[in-house]
């Protein structure tokens, strides 16, 4: 790991004159196994490394930045990237708010995000996880006709950031996942269900749970019908709630807010959600898959309260958006790999647990729809206008119980209204891979479009 920091520092030391350099170096090892019909269908093993360089030059009206990246760490590639980044500087607009992160004295959380199980587990044992997973699903229920894919994957990733501003940060993380998609069939046709288990190493994975999830979801969708259009309560399961929270988190990014590209802009202090809705972004919570020690600019990650009992409390900022907003970074810079420049992003959202179990919520809702999957999130949600319309599959809720399965139906509202229409927050938090954990969440006055 210190090897990456050495490379980053060696590039930073090449700064000439009054230019500033920020260098991000990363490397990773990946394994991926796909099982099909009891055999390995695909096995991928790979190592990768890369570098992203930003060059900043002060000018009378502010500063300019140029960037470049390379998908390797050989000397020639690094030289070329540095040359290109320098060449790109001249074409950027001078901007008084542009600047690199400066060390802010916030101590990094002490987190262990790597489990050596990823590297010590043999390839044979990893392959066995995928093959066993497929077998469990295939034999779990006579109505399972096919297992479209049963996968195991893991990674160990390392990164280092160094800059002429004195930033020095290194971090390392590992992850292991199994996922499976089952196709169930009966006289009414086919339905699919997807199951997942995630951890930091293979020994944390629960393939029985992933299999049971996929089988239950696929089989209970059999005979699904398109319901009549209606307006009522939608109860989102933990997975779909996590997707909703991730969308809301996108609108809480300082980078979107300072550009006026969020329906939350200019609403600090306002009541934007119901009393029971408290949302925080806390990468220092090791239970969260988005946990991280440093952000994408090398500042310590920290706990940020975004919505407190329904009141909009704050946003997450990287250095640039914070300067534009007249505040300081919240340690929330994220970069999309070596090619991405930092921008503010939530990475470990959690909604404060409510008082209810899922069964309580269903009983109290009485009648409505239970949402198990969302489709078209990228095409049907606009985080600027707040328009929200997505396809769902799930089950009707009748008399407080899950009833017949439904498909080919959409739920629609606006994100602004949904936050104010929340009726119940569950206590059944599931730590899921991605930027948000999730729990059962009931939202009233949703339009359901069916036949």
């Amino acid at each position, binding site marked *: 790991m210190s090897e990456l920091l050495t490379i980053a520092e060696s590039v930073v030391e090449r700064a000439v004159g009054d230019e500033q350099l920020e260098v991000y170096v990363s490397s990773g090892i990946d394994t991926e196994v796909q099982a099909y019909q009891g055999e390995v269908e695909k096995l991928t093993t790979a190592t990768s490394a890369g570098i992203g360089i930003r060059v900043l030059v002060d000018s009378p009206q502010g500063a300019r930045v140029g960037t470049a990246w390379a998908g390797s760490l050989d000397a020639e590639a690094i030289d070329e990237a540095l040359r290109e980044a320098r060449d790109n500087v001249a074409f950027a607009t001078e901007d008084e708010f542009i600047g690199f992160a400066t060390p802010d004295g916030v101590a990094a959380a002490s987190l262990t995000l790597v489990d050596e199980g990823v590297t010590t587990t043999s390839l044979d044992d990893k392959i066995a996880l995928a093959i066993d997973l497929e077998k469990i699903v295939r034999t779990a229920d006579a109505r399972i006709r096919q297992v479209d894919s049963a996968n195991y994957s893991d990674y160990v990733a390392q990164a280092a950031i160094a800059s002429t501003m004195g930033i020095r940060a290194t971090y390392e993380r590992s992850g292991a996942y199994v996922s499976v998609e089952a196709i169930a069939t009966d006289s009414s046709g086919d339905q699919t269900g997807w199951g997942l288990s995630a951890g930091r190493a293979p020994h944390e994975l629960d393939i029985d749970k992933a299999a049971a999830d996929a089988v239950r979801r696929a089989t209970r969708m059999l005979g699904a019908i398109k319901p009549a259009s209606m307006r009522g309560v939608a109860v989102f399961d933990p997975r779909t709630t996590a997707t909703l929270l991730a969308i809301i988190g996108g609108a809480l990014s300082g980078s979107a807010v300072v550009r006026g590209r969020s329906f939350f802009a200019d609403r600090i202090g306002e009541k934007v959600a119901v009393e029971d809705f408290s949302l925080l972004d806390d990468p220092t919570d090791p239970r969260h898959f988005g946990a991280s020690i440093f952000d994408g600019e090398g500042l310590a990650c920290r706990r940020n309260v975004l919505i407190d009992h329904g009141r909009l409390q704050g946003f997450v900022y990287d250095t640039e958006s914070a300067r534009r907003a007249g505040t300081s970074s919240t340690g929330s810079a994220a970069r999309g790999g070596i090619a991405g420049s930092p921008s503010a992003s939530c990475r470990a959202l959690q909604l404060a647990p409510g008082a209810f179990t899922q069964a309580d919520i269903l009983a109290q809702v009485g009648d409505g729809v239970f949402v198990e999957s969302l489709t078209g999130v990228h095409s049907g949600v606009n985080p*600027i206008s707040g328009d929200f319309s997505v396809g769902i599959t799930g089950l009707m809720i009748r008399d407080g119980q899950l009833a017949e399965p439904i498909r080919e139906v959409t739920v629609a509202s606006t994100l602004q209204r949904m936050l104010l229409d929340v009726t119940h927050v569950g206590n059944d938090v599931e730590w899921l891979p991605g930027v948000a954990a999730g729990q059962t969440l009931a939202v009233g006055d949703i339009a359901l479009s069916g036949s």
Partner: protein
Amino acid sequence: MNTSELVERDVIERVLASALSRGGEFAEVFVEDRRTSSASLDQRRVEELSSGRDRGAGIRVVVGETTGFAHTADLSEQGLIDAAHAAATVARSGSSRTVTTSLGEHMSYVNQAEQPLGTVDKARKIEVLLRADDIARSTGGEITQVMVGLGESSRRILVANSDGVFRSDHQVRTRFNVQCVALGDTGMQTGYRPVAATRGFEILTDDAVAEAATGAARQAITKLAARPAPSGDLPVVLAGGSGGILFHEACGHGLEADAILKEASVYAGKAGQKVASDLVTLVDDGTVEGEWGYLAMDDEGRAAGRNVLIENGVLTDYMWDFLSARRQGRASSGNGRRQSYQHLPMVRMTNTYLLEGPDTPEDIIAQTPRGVYVAQLGGGQVNTATGDFVFGMTEAYLIEGGVITTPLRECNLIGNGPEVLQRVDAVASDFSMTPGTCGKDGQQVPVGTGQATMRLSSVTIGGTAA
């Protein structure tokens, strides 16, 4: 640099031999050297110019039904041999053997770009971005924000395999887009227009830039007057161009042979059967030069093809890559694509379009008493096993009494592929295409979709109004 020089012939032959030294029937080396450049203008600020370079090789070994794959950024002979050994771990029972492979004649495709990445001055690019901003703002005072993006790529690829294939290509792509935000009494609305082609910077003519800027601005302004979209089933008229995404989702993914062979598609076993209305003739065509999904050869070295998928409503064939075709003892249809050397190829669409029909757009609208007119579609998503799909409408209007009236707020449409294909009841002849990015199993590739103005007799609109 000549593409064949990415890696020397004799080095590749030794790497392939090494990949097969522990068993296996097929080995392939895919080498890629991709340069990219992007520029973004946000609120008249050039936020950044970024340049990137990615170079490496992906090696696969096929043993029975199993594929082993490894990739490396190290293009030295030792780096490639190490990756070959990693890919060959799937041939685990095989004892060591000596294999020789010899490649055929090298064949190289030439790109048609007049101004590929690296030939246009960076200052000239900034001028184009600023010009788009000027035009968008001059469209109306409601425009409060303009974002303009430019992305260029130059991708040299080389495919060599143990069947002797030895081919290279140089693919040049340019993508430009304008996004506007308009502010009105009802809040903010957005407008978006892309311009993209498998060509160089020359596609950004003054006219093309002006049209994108004006189009994005007008769309945002128009939507300020939008009211909530209806909820429930209505006839839907799709304007020519972006409506092609309907076929991409409703049946395109379901006609990819990997889904077919796993019986994970509603279209499995339906070849030769009527699956759509007579008006539907659907083609996947990688040979349309310059289009966003154009390929001289696919990422397995197979020349791109024009493949008729559905003819007058009858399913004629699926799309195939090397492995799925090999399992069926037939030839690939040139649909083996991969995002980069770090990914395995799989069956992907290229340019997928509906052939023109006998109607006119005016008649189709006039003959729709009440419905929705979709001027621009956004992305979509499909479950191939059930055929259920959604796609977003980013610019749409009500049709009342055969006339286009009120603009509608954004929402998704939802339907079932096999049912919706039967409901195509009018197709006009004003054909055009739209660029898009298709995601499958985490891999993104550029695709084109196209169609003329057409009507679906009924689709579910996912709005909120009664």
